[in-house]
Structures are given as C-alpha cells and as structure tokens.
C-alpha cells in the first residue's frame, strides 16, 4: 500500500487543495444551523425584518461559496486521482517492458493486462472517493463523540466504548474482504485469459466446431468470478447492518442508563436527548463507512497486485561491467561450450555447444524438430542468458554489452511472423524508426515484397489487422524480413523464416541478402538453402552433432546424408 501511495507524491498539492475545499464545504454546512438560529432569535423573535434579510443573504452567499469550493474540489480530486492512475499505468508498462522472458513466465499476459487497466481503475476510483466524501464521515464521527463528551461524560462513555468496537470490526472486515477481493481479481484474470485465448485461436475453434466446449470453459471461469464476487460483496455488505445494530444498541443503552441518570439527577432530559441526537448523526455518518470498507478493501487487493509487478526483480539487466561503448564491429560470433535450460526446468535444451561464425559468413542450422535450434537463436540477442559457457561477439562476451546496443544491431526474423496493427510502412519502420522511404523501399525490394506492395491499392499505407491477416503467410514472412533488413543489421537471424515462401522467391531473397555485410545465421529445413551456406551446423537433441560445409558433411555425417536423401531421393547422393 505504501508503495502505491507514493504515487500520490507529485500530486500532493492537488490532494491538499481537494481536502481544503472539502473542509470549506463542511464548514458552511455546519454553519448553516447557526445562521438559522440567528434569523429566528434576532430576526423573527426580536421582530427585526432587516436581520432576517441580512442573515438570509449571508446564507445564500455562503451556499455559493460552498458550491464554488465543491466545483474546485472536483477539479483537484479528479486531477490527483487521474494523474496518479496515469503514472501507475506508465510505471507498470515500463516495468513490464524491462521484464525478461523468465519474468514473463511469472505473470500470464491476461493478468498483466487486468492489472494495468482494471486494478488501476479501481484504485483511481477509490482515490477520487477518498478525496471527496470519505473525509467527512470520520470527521463527523469524531466531532460527535467530542460533543457528546462535553454534554455528559457518563452517558457519552457508551459511545466511547461502541466506536472503537466498531472501528476494530471495520478493520477486521477490511483485511478479510481485501483477501477475497484479491481472489476476485484473480478470477477476473481467468476470464480475461479464456477470452484472450479464444480470440487468438478463433479459426481453430470454428474449424473444429468447439463453440460449445469453449462456451463451457468461459462459463466456468465467469461463474467462478461471479461466485467470488458474490462472496466478497456479501461480506462487505454485512458491515452496514452491523454498524446499524451496534449504534442502535448504543441508543438503547443511552435511553436505559439515561432514564436512571435523570432520576438520580446525574443527567438532564435535554442531555439525554442531545446524546441520542449525536448518536443518530453518527449512525448516518457511519453508514458511509460500509462504502469505505468496500473501496478500501478492493483498493488494498488491487494495490498488492500492482506492487507485485512493480517489485518483480528483473533478472536480465545490464551489469556495471556492461560497456555502453561496445559495438558489434565485424559480427564474428563464437559459442564457447554453451549449455542452457529454460528457467524452472531440469533438462538442458542445449548442451556444450561450441562453434564459430566468422564475420560476414552465412551459417545454416539444421536439425530435427525440437533439437534446440530456436533456443540457440534466442541466446544471441539475450532473450535468455546462458547457464554455462559463453557467447562472444567480436571477442567480447555479450553479457558485457548493453542490452539495447546489442539488440539494435541484430536483425531477428522469428518463426511466426508477428505484425502489429498499423500500415505496412509502419510495420517495416518498426525495425528502424528513422528509416526514410528509400530505405524502406530498398528493404522491401530485398525481401522480395516490393512488387506485392506496389500492387496494393494503398501501397505502403495499406492497413494491417492485429495479426496481419490481410496478407498471406508468405507475405507476412517477407514483411517481417523487411522489418529486420531495414535496420541494416550486423547480425541477421532467420528462424525458418522462409518456410512459407516458394523456392523461387526464396532463392531471390537469399541472393539479395548478399547485399548486406552481415553475419547471417539461418535455421532452415531446406537443403537447397543449406547447400549455399558457408558453414552448416547440425543439431540433435541439443548437441552439436556436426559442423562443416555441405561437402564435408555429406562425407562425414550419416544424419546429414539422411536429411539430404529425404529431400532429393537416393539418386542425389553422388553429384558432380
């Protein structure tokens, strides 16, 4: 909670202003009965009409002042709460952007989304309420207790007992409800999760006609959310009847003891009436407390969820040794006995892998499904850090380089072409924000996409949906290649990124890649591609089985021969 409250810091002034204006309003409100008394005593009773008019206009004037104060309060309260909400969302988003993939595995995407929107909104609303009405209630309660004590200490003792009792009860409710509300938010994550998955997999769901199955899944998640919410709210709503009961019992006690006190002369009738009166006022003020309990326990739950994210330790960061000046100059990559396993798993996905890719070389990586090819790729831009051994680029350990410096010089084309909502141009410029139109066109030409774009009615300004659905699979792949090329990378990583391309287009593309003076690592299944590589790495079960040129491997590796045969048939083994 404290961490969340610290977000209010910059808006302290607005908070004070809001509170100040609430006081002004409250003051006017309390002053009005006093003015009414003036009108009656000095005006009507004394028969002075001018006094009635005078105090009457003072009352109108004060009402207007209260109104102005109320309006201003609205501005400051909204400013403080909305700005704080804004800052919290920004802080969360920035934090999440610094997450490593290991961090990501701690929070499902859907949960991060709810935290950034729903939880922050809840906090924001609680804050707005706090700045506007919540202050009044405690003040009224305290004021009433003090007044009652002044009137008659003995009778007021009943209140002195009742109020702390109530407060203890409310605090207990808040902490208990807070826990349940936390699980309400978690169930909301669940609903969000099913929803997200369904949107992403809608084609498959339709293709397999699993509408009912998915609806059932959603109903389950949604039903759990309903049950939890009911439970939480029912608990919170219990506070109101309990407050009423305790306060009403106090009234009864005041009457009971009062009647004896009056008899023994310990209190006057007027005093009993006054204390009953103060108790009823307090009851009214306390009824707001049930709302406060709800807002606070929800806010507590939400702020804990927000703090969870903010306090997550990012495990992949620049160290003090990382040198900002280090750049990739040539692009020579060396793997030195690299072993790696994914966080929280036991089996090594890569074991003792060593190889060298000389600057400007083209290296093909070949291997069976699940042999660790993509994993090997992810280590180069440091999406994960190696567990053993080291990777050096131009002789420097990549862990000693600044993350963004390292990544900015790598062009990465993933297996699944992930595009963003926006135009084609925007998607390519994603690789390099400052890219000129010429650079973009050049990149698309090299990616063999220029003709396709030219034929589109809106050309580079064609808008793409979230997953780039207007384009075919191959077009998406080429777009994602263009995105990597536009940044003129020193190292180009192609993760089976040409699988949806036909051979002709692919050959043209590979040829045009020669224009770039970069070290290229490519994962591929196609022999036709590997044959043209300078070095071929053959992976099996996370180990480097063989490396060398096509001819060398044809001689030395039986697996390589087998793959070759799988694509060209037996007749191809003895070529010229």
């Amino acid at each position, binding site marked *: 909670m404290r961490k969340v409250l610290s977000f209010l810091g910059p808006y302290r002034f607005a908070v004070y202003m809001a509170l100040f204006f609430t006081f002004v309003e409250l003051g006017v409100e309390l002053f009005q009965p006093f003015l009414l008394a003036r009108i009656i005593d000095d005006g009507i009773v004394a028969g002075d009409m001018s006094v009635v008019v005078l105090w009457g206009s003072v009352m109108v004037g004060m009402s207007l002042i209260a109104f102005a104060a109320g309006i201003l309060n609205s501005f400051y309260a909204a400013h403080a709460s*909305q700005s704080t909400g804004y800052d919290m969302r*920004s802080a969360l988003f920035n934090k999440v952007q610094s997450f490593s993939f290991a961090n*990501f595995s701690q929070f499902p995407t859907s949960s*991060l989304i709810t935290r950034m929107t729903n939880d922050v909104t809840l906090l924001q609303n609680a804050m707005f309420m706090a700045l506007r009405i919540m202050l009044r209630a405690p003040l009224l309660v305290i004021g009433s207790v003090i007044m009652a004590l002044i009137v008659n200490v003995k009778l007021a003792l009943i209140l002195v007992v009742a109020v702390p009792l109530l407060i203890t009860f409310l605090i207990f409710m808040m902490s208990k409800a807070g826990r349940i509300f936390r699980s309400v938010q978690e169930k909301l994550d669940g609903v969000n999760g099913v929803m997200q998955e369904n949107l992403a*997999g809608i084609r498959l769901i339709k293709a397999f006609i699993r509408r009912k199955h998915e609806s059932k899944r959603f109903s389950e998640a949604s039903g759990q959310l309903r049950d939890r*919410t009911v439970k939480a709210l029912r608990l919170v709503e219990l506070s109101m009847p309990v407050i009423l009961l305790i306060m009403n019992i106090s009234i009864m006690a005041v009457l009971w003891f009062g009647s004896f006190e009056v008899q023994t002369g310990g209190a006057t009738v007027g005093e009993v009436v006054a204390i009953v009166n103060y108790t009823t006022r307090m009851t009214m003020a306390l009824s707001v407390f049930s709302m406060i309990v709800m807002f606070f326990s929800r806010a507590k739950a939400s702020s804990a969820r927000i703090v969870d994210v903010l306090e997550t330790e990012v495990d992949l960061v620049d160290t003090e040794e990382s040198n900002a000046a280090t750049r990739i100059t040539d692009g020579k990559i060396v793997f030195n006995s690299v072993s790696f396993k994914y966080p929280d798993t036991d089996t090594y996905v890569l074991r003792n892998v060593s190889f060298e890719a000389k600057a400007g070389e083209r290296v093909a990586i070949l291997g069976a*499904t699940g042999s660790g090819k993509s994993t090997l790729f992810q280590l180069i831009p440091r999406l994960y850090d190696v567990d053993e051994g080291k990777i050096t680029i131009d002789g420097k350990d990549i862990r000693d380089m600044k993350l963004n410096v*390292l990544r900015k010089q790598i062009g990465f084309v993933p297996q699944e072409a992930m595009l963003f909502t926006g135009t084609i141009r925007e998607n390519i410029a994603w690789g390099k924000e400052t890219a000129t139109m010429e650079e973009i066109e050049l990149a698309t030409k090299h990616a063999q996409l220029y003709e396709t774009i030219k034929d589109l009615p809106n050309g580079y300004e064609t808008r793409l949906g979230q997953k780039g659905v207007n384009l075919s699979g191959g077009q998406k792949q080429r777009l994602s290649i263009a995105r990597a090329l536009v940044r003129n990378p020193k190292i180009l990583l192609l993760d089976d990124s040409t699988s949806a391309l036909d051979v002709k287009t692919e050959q043209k593309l590979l040829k045009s890649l020669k224009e770039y003076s970069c070290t290229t690592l490519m994962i591929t299944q196609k022999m036709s591609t590997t044959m043209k590589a300078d070095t071929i790495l053959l992976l099996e079960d996370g180990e480097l089985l063989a490396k060398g040129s096509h001819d060398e491997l044809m001689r030395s590796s039986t697996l390589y021969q087998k793959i070759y045969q799988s694509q060209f048939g037996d007749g191809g083994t003895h070529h010229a």
Partner: protein
Amino acid sequence: MLNKIKEPFQHRRIKIDSTTSKSNDNEYTTRKKPRVENWWGTLKRIWKYLSESKGLITLVLFLVILSSSMALLGPFLVGWGIDAFIETQNTSGIGYLLAGLAAVYVLHSLSVWQQAFWMIRIAQKTVYQMRTQLFRHLQKLPIPFFDKRQHGELMSRVTNDMENVSNVLNSSVIQIFTSVLTLIGTLTVMLWLSPLLTFITLLIVPAMVFGMKWITKRTGVLFKEQQKNLGRLNGHIQETMSGQRIVKTFSQEDKVIGEFKERNERLKISGFWAQTFSGFIPKLMNVLNNLSFAVIAGVGGILAFNDVITIGTIVIFAEYARQFTRPLNDLANQFNTLLSAVAGAERVFDIMDEEEEMKDEGNAVELEKITGDVRFSDVSFSYEEDGDTVNNVSFHASPGETVAFVGPTGAGKTTMINLLSRFYDADSGSILIDGHEIKTIKRESLRKHMAFVLQDSFLFHGTIRENIRYGRLDATDEDVVEAAKLANAHSFIMKSADGYDTFIDADGGGISQGQKQLLSIARAILANPTILILDEATSSIDTVTEIRIQEALQRLMKGRTSFVIAHRLNTIQKADQIIILKDGEIIERGSHTSLLRQDGFYAELYNSQLKKEAMLG
C-alpha cells in the same frame, strides 16, 4: 506554486461536438460523436436481464420498504420513549419500550442485510449472463470480424465495461428504491406541515433538472469516451505483450512505451473530464439544498413574522427540507454511476448486435454423412472491395482424392481453404459438396466433416493430452496416444517432463514450432474427418521426420478428400491433382507426371527444387 494551482485546469479539453471542425492544440476532438441518446434503450435491455429474477427483485423491494419503515419507526419510538419515560422520570414500563426498540432495530439490520444479500446475487447473475452471452455471441461472429478488431479492445469489453455494469447493479438498485421511498415519505410530511413552504422547496426542482441536463450531456459522452480509450489502451497492451519477442529483439521498448504513453494520456484526459463533471452533480445538489434552506429560512421568517406559521414549523420544516434533498442527492450520485454503466453496457451491446455468422440461410440443412465430393465452379472472391484474390476458379475433387494447391505466396491458396470452410463466403460462383451448394449447409454441419491443420498451429493453455483431444472431445486416452504415434509426436511427448500431462503455456518456451505442428496433426488425425485440410502442415518440421509422418498422412488421406498446401513439392507428388495458382487464377493442373510433361510453371518449380546440380553450380 502558481503552476500547481493551475495544473488541474490545464488538461486538454475534449470537444464533444464534432460539427465545428476547427480545434486548437489545447483540445482534442473525438473522431465520431459517441452516441448516448439511446440510453433508455440500453437501460431497458439491462432491465430485461434483471427481470428474469422478478421474484427476488420483489423480495428486495419488499425488504427495502421494510427497512425504510423500520428506519422511520426507530427514531419515532425513541422520541416517544423520551417523552413517556425520561421526561416523566417514570421508569416502570421502559423495559417494554426497549424490547420494542430492540425488535425494530434487529428487524432493521436484518432487512438491510438481506436486501443487499439478495441484490448482490441478482446483480452478479445478471453480469454473469451478460458476460457469457457476449462470449457466446463472439463465438458466432464471422472470421472477418476478428481479423479487423484488436483483441485487447474486445477483451476490455468483457472485463472493464462489464465491471461498470456490475458496480451499478450491486448497489444502485437498492439505493434508488430507498431514495424514491424516502423522497415520497418526506414530501408527504412536508405537505402536511406547510403546503406553501413545500411549494417553495420544490422550486429547486427545475433548477436541478436544468443543471443535471447540462452535466449529463457532458458526462454521458465523456464516460463513453473514457471506456473507449480504456479499450484502446487495453488493445495496445495486449498486442505488445503478445509481440514481446519482437519488441525485445528489436530493442523497441522505448517505441512501444511512447505509443502507450499517447493512449494512456488520452485515457487520462477523458477520465479527468468525466470525473470532474460527474463530481459536479453532488455539488450542484448541495448548493440547491443550501439555497432552499436559505429561502425557507427567509420566507419562513417573513411568514412567521406575519404569524402565518410558527417558529417551530420553520425549524421542523428546515430539517425536513434537508431530508428531502438528501435522497435527491443520493439519486443524483447514483445517476452518475448509472451513466458510466450505461456507457459500458452500450459497448457490450454493440458487440452483441454485430451480425452473427451463424445466421445460416433459412433453409440450410444438416448433412449427416458426406462422401467428400467437392466442386468449385467459377468461384471469385476478394478480401477488400477492390482487386480479386481468387478469380474464376473451377475444379472438381472426387471422393477420396487428394488435391494439392501450389503457387507463389499470395496466389490465393489459403483463400481457397477459407472459402471451402466458409470462414469467408465467395463473392460469386458456387462451391458444392456432394452436390449441395455449401451456403445451403449449416456451417457447423459443414465443418463437422472437415479437419484442419492450419498455417499457424495454435495450441491452448493446457496439457498436451487436452490439446490433442481437442480434435475429438470424447476420445479415450488410448485414442490420443494412437493419434500422437501416427503423427510422430509420441516420442517427443514421452521425452517431456510429464509426458502427455506436460503443460503448454500460452507462449510456451518449452515446445518448438515443429512440435506444435506435430501436435496439430495429431489433433486432426483424431478428428477422423471426411475432408482433410492441410495448410502448410509440415513446414516447420524437419524433413527426416516429415518423411516419417508422410506415410502416416498418406494412410490418413486414404479414403478422404484431402486438400494440401505445401511448398516442398516432394510431399505432394502423390496427389491425384495438383492445381497451380497464380494471382488467384488456375494456370496449370494435372498429376505430377503430366505436369512435368507440360514443362510449365510446375516443372520449372520442381526442377529448381530438385535439381541440386543447377543450384550447386
């Protein structure tokens, strides 16, 4: 200091009316004026859900009446007790009073508790129904709908917008009931005390109505704008989260943070104005309240001066006038939350009003069994208004035949499958299955006979077993293993930590793309369809494994009509028909051997893939 004072007033203004096109830097105009006029309709629709629990609502209403009367009875008894026992200093019989009071108080607390207890149930049931209905409806929407929408934005409707509806239903219904009841009660007492002063008090009502109109005209739009901006923000977050791999490897964190900031700021501004304006309502009520108090004091003073009424009446009346405005104040506050809920509900209903894909043509039939005879005649289709993606395509696949589509990327291969499965409907021409035009077949019935391995192999968050079983929900564990073996997935599954019970994350680090494809194939095998559709089913699988599953696939395709898209031509050599598409038109067709003889596009493609000499040379 001065800056800090000015801060809240320096937020950019939101122009509500878009008729005047000029706007300066300090305001932003919403592109389209969001509609809120229809909010009676929206309320009615919410009521429709609520009214399903009519019995419970009646109960709640009864409890509200009970608690309101108990709330009045309590103070009355106290007043009477003070007069009867304390003032007279006669304590005999005070026990009865206290017993009576205790009964009233307990009843009061009980009714307050029970009304909330049941209302929460009604409210959450309603919210649940709306949510599930929204979801069910989404499931029925056509693919193009999803292709055009940002997923996170849709998600926001299910969570954030529904949240607003939920908040209102939980408390507002009771509040409104109570307020109306109190209002009627106090008004009666006031009329009884002094009709003239009551009339004066009621003078504030027109001012109130006017003020409320002025405020709600703004807040209505602003709340909607706020929800829209929240949705957009949600969309952006969702997209960057799912594209995190790209964001990271391209080191574009700053860029997405910048984009986020822009959306976040819009949300802040619309939220600020919505909140500020909505904050005016209770203040307006307060000032009117205070003014009427002053007027009552003033006018009452004059009346009392002239002995029309007594001083006591003024005092009591002033107190009641205060009580009169309190429920009005509450109502006004509720009105506010109501507005934000209506804004949310409208966005939910917007989606529910989207036209369903499932509206099968009136006389659409179910097909119990099909042989798998597929005929395309003169089919044309384009995704956008202009330009053909598929142009005048005709072909025929006899039952059990394998048809392969070959062609450069973007030639329209996947489109053929989109049309066959009716993800999209053809613009012209007809597609027949067993002689039935597919538009006359119920979509679900049509797809029931098909199994798909789609280009991007989507897996659900769940175990491997669950994912394979998705192909046929009633399959036994043995069936699942059998299918996995056929798809050559069994060995890698067994190597995973928990075998078939290994969990797959949404963006699983542990499982490779090729393995995902193997699981997709297993899933399709399990479905046991008449028509099999393989769209680049093996593109990420290494060729050695591919050869192994090829045999399984051949076996699988036997006796089924199969449509295959593949770039590696050796995988489709055995197809009965190979159709070469280019720019949406069929340029060649025939069997592998006959196409080679034609020495056209296919032959060239084939040779470029197979003649390694040419490449090495």
